[in-house]
């Protein structure tokens, strides 16, 4: 009995030593990565993102045999956009499933809730689906963490710069989601208007992400005399803001954060409240738009549509989140390829923090993914784009170093 | 064969025998008193007749037809109406609305204004016409008893089950009630089964009296016979509460 136990123990020990050659999640023919996403609950419209990422990984597995002969397995779990659910979900991924890295996990609060844990264990927490600027700034304390999305303050600053160059006398009203997301966008806007931000911004109306409606805020913004409306909210309140502005017969120049500017939403608003409700709206962009007739022959868009048709036929091409998701998956694959023949977590981090490429087929031409040991901002190139004729139309040159 | 007949009805609740082999006949046009000390099974018998309880054994027939397969809400269609010991009026409804609910029970093809007139006439009969639009909640207990009685009458029953109609009434009102019950029988041709603690009332108005104790029939006869029955006297003396007022 004892002997048997000793034999079993010995087997485990040798097994363990044999495995130390590779980091967790890496076998001879596979790589396991994981992520948490809101598949249910208030933010569940982002639930399609991991499905599109998996579609891209499957495409890479089928056409190229994965990365260096290892197929990529992507395990995504639901956290309902609720940090208290993220913690056990991430622990499960790290400790039970033994994932190699956490990739593109979605949301600021969920990400913050597990940042210490993942850094302590030296598990890469990378390409996060959130645009808070601190992901980029706090790299010294959290070397295992790196974001992906353009930073929110950066977008706010770009809006201010554009207003100052085109309509310097504009009276700006802001609908701001009352949380760090909205506050960062507003801070960026103020930075862009500095030192005259007090006189440029005539009214800021905060709104709760769960507010049943935004009519009170919109009526007050209208009454403030604003002729320019900046919408710094997530999709659900943003849609309400567009529809409500039309309902109360207010037609300011609208700027909306890229977070809420999916062609899917814009089209839906146009359908419900008329094209006038959305036409002329300005946002920033960095991903290609499959709904734009001008980009139909773009090889990146074609590849996107081809992968969608084969691996995710139920997905909606008009959902900008999906092409975004593939751009993330592309970036992850790119880094894995450069992480060594047998990738290690450290190697993966090194690859991610030494990215320098403009070849991501799903990003707009002109967007360069550039990072370094001291630059943890992935996407800093943004262009302005205007909604007309039922799709986004990029205009002007790129803004760089948006952070 | 009476209008209502219970035959060898047994009903147990867990280990307690609530009705033990009770047989009871109520002939058409009669006023029958059902008496007994507290817990004798009187209200239980009412609940069996109105199908709120299902007996374990025995038969309950009304007008020659078994009631045991009739759901409670159909009982009134057969022509049985009842009142409750603790009054079960609809509190937030007006007095008239309470009676209207009863009137609707027998209004299959009757136009609504006729039903309303009938309900108002019933209120007149019990002397509550003036209170028709008052909400029931807040009215004195005695008045509520009359509201409930009117609601029962408005369903135009053949058999009226009265559960302690004299509860809470003063001496004069009890006298009046006795006369009223007889009038119902004589003028509306109603048959009445009456549960009452007020012994003088029961003995005065009843044509026949049925006595229960511990769920069992201990006597059955004319008021005079029952009053002389030694088992009845013993049952009431043995009971701790509610000695007969007679």
């Amino acid at each position, binding site marked *: 009995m004892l002997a048997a136990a000793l034999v079993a123990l010995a087997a485990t020990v040798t097994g363990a030593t044999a495995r130390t050659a590779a980091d967790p999640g890496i076998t001879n023919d596979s790589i396991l990565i994981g992520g948490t996403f809101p598949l249910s609950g208030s933010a569940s419209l982002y639930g399609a993102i991991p499905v599109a990422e998996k579609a891209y990984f499957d495409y890479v597995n089928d056409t190229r045999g994965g990365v260096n002969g290892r197929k990529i397995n992507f395990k995504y779990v639901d956290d309902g956009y609720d940090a208290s659910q993220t913690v056990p979900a991430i622990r499960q991924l790290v400790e039970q499933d033994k994932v190699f890295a956490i990739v593109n996990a979605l949301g600021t609060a969920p990400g913050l809730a597990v940042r210490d844990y993942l850094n302590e264990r030296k598990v890469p927490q990378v390409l996060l689906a959130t645009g808070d600027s601190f992901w980029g700034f706090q790299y010294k304390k959290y070397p295992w963490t790196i974001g992906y999305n353009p930073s929110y303050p950066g977008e706010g600053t770009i809006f201010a710069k554009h207003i100052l160059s085109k309509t310097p006398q504009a009276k700006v009203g802001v609908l701001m989601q009352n949380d760090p997301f909205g506050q960062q966008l507003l801070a960026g806007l103020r930075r862009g208007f500095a030192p005259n931000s007090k006189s440029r911004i005539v009214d800021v109306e905060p709104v*709760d992400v769960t507010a049943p409606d935004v009519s009170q805020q919109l009526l007050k913004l209208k009454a403030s005399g604003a002729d320019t409306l900046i919408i710094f909210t997530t999709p659900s309140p943003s849609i309400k803001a567009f529809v409500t502005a039309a*309902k109360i017969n207010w037609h300011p120049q609208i700027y909306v954060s890229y977070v809420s500017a999916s062609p899917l939403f814009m089209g839906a608003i146009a359908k419900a409240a008329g094209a006038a409700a959305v036409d002329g709206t300005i946002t920033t962009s960095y991903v290609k738009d499959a709904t734009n007739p001008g980009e139909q022959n773009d090889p990146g868009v074609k590849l996107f549509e081809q992968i969608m048709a084969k691996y995710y036929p139920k997905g909606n091409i008009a959902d900008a989140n999906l092409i975004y998701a593939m751009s993330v998956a592309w970036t992850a694959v790119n880094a894995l390829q450069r992480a060594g023949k047998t990738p290690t977590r450290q190697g993966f981090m090194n690859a991610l923090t030494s990215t320098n490429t403009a070849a991501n087929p799903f990003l707009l031409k002109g967007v360069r993914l550039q990072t370094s040991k001291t630059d943890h901002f992935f996407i800093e190139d943004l262009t302005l784009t205007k909604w007309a004729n039922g799709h986004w139309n990029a205009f002007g040159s790129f803004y760089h170093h948006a952070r | 064969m009476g209008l209502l007949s219970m035959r060898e009805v047994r009903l147990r609740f867990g280990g307690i025998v609530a009705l033990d082999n009770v047989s009871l006949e109520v002939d058409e046009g009669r006023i029958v008193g059902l008496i007994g000390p507290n817990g004798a099974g009187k209200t239980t018998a009412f609940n069996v007749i109105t199908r709120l309880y299902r007996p374990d054994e025995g038969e309950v027939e009304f007008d020659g037809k078994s009631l045991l397969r009739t759901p*409670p809400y159909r009982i009134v269609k057969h022509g049985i109406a009842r009142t409750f010991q603790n009054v*079960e009026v*609809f509190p937030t409804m007006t007095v008239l609305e309470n009676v209207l609910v009863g009137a609707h029970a027998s209004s299959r093809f009757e136009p609504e204004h006729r039903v309303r007139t009938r309900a108002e006439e019933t209120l007149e009969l019990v002397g509550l016409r003036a209170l028709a639009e008052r909400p029931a909640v807040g009215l004195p207990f005695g008045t509520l008893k009359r509201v409930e009685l009117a609601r029962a009458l408005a*369903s135009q029953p053949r058999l009226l089950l009265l559960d302690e109609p004299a509860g809470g009434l003063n001496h004069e009102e009890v006298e009046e009630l006795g006369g009223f019950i007889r009038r119902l029988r004589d003028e509306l041709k109603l048959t009445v089964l009456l549960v009452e603690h007020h012994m003088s009332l029961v003995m005065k108005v009843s044509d026949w009296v049925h006595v229960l104790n511990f769920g069992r029939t201990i006597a059955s006869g004319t008021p005079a016979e029952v009053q002389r029955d030694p088992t009845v006297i013993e049952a009431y003396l043995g009971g701790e509460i509610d000695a007969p007022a007679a």
Partner: protein
Amino acid sequence: MVLLLAAACVALVIGSLVSDQFAEQTVAGLATGGIFGSLALALVLIYRATEVINFAQGQMAMFTTYIAWQLMQWGIGYWGAFVLTLGIAFAGGVALLAFALGAVFVRDWTFERMGIKQAGGGVIAVVIVTIGMLILLEGAAAWIWSPEIKSFPSAFPTRPIRVGGVAFSIQDLGTIGVALGSVVVLWVFFQFTKVGLAMRAAALRPFAARLVGVRVNAMLALGWGLAAVLGAIAGLMIAPTIFLQPTMMDTILIYAFAAAVLGGIESPAGAVVGGLALGVVLNLLGTYVHFVTSELRLPVALGMLLIVLLIKPTGLFGHRVVRKV
């Protein structure tokens, strides 16, 4: 109470004449309040019928709105889909009650089989079933129709109308009209029809009602069906502004709870007045009282509720009814 309300109405009218923004905020508040009120009315109907707080009310409304959307996708016109949806909602409400009662029955039966004696708990059990339904319906909607936001057409034109210098949304005015219309229709139904009277009787004293010929279970089912219809109406009215999403009704339901309690949980008129009052007060506070920022809206609403309940524990329109056990 009536005086107080009349005074409030006069104050609103005067304010509206003085300030355009006040008028616009009031009308918009009434429209949102109308939605709260319709859903509150549905809660009240179910509470009156079965003494159950139906936590699934918002999700029922959401689900039926999705059904309307689906019908329109299949090519049925707006009003055809509207009517069909109300019919389906009614059947769904009845089915939900049957399901809840069935679940309780099965539980009791199983416990009996297992030899576990336990007393009643019927209402609590039904409440728990409604919470389960909430989760189930939300999941089902996301699964059937995807969690993607969908636009929803309006029964009313989206253009505004001008009265004086003020632009009112026709959609808002329509929503207010529908909310008030439903309470009037319900009031007439409960007050002047045979079935309405029977429903009230069944809710108040089920045993007595049964014995005067009221089919109590049918009346309870009817109550749940009507509540589902009201919820569907609320969903159809709000969807053009907030769009379709499985979670669209989540916070609205909380405000509806507040409205229902504010009005007196047993009073249909109170529910609608409570909803309208909540909508207007929140808009005016947000506009004119600067410390009431958006994150304070819900706390302020609940604070109002608390104050009303301290002064009048039965709500604005409630009566004290002593119930026997």
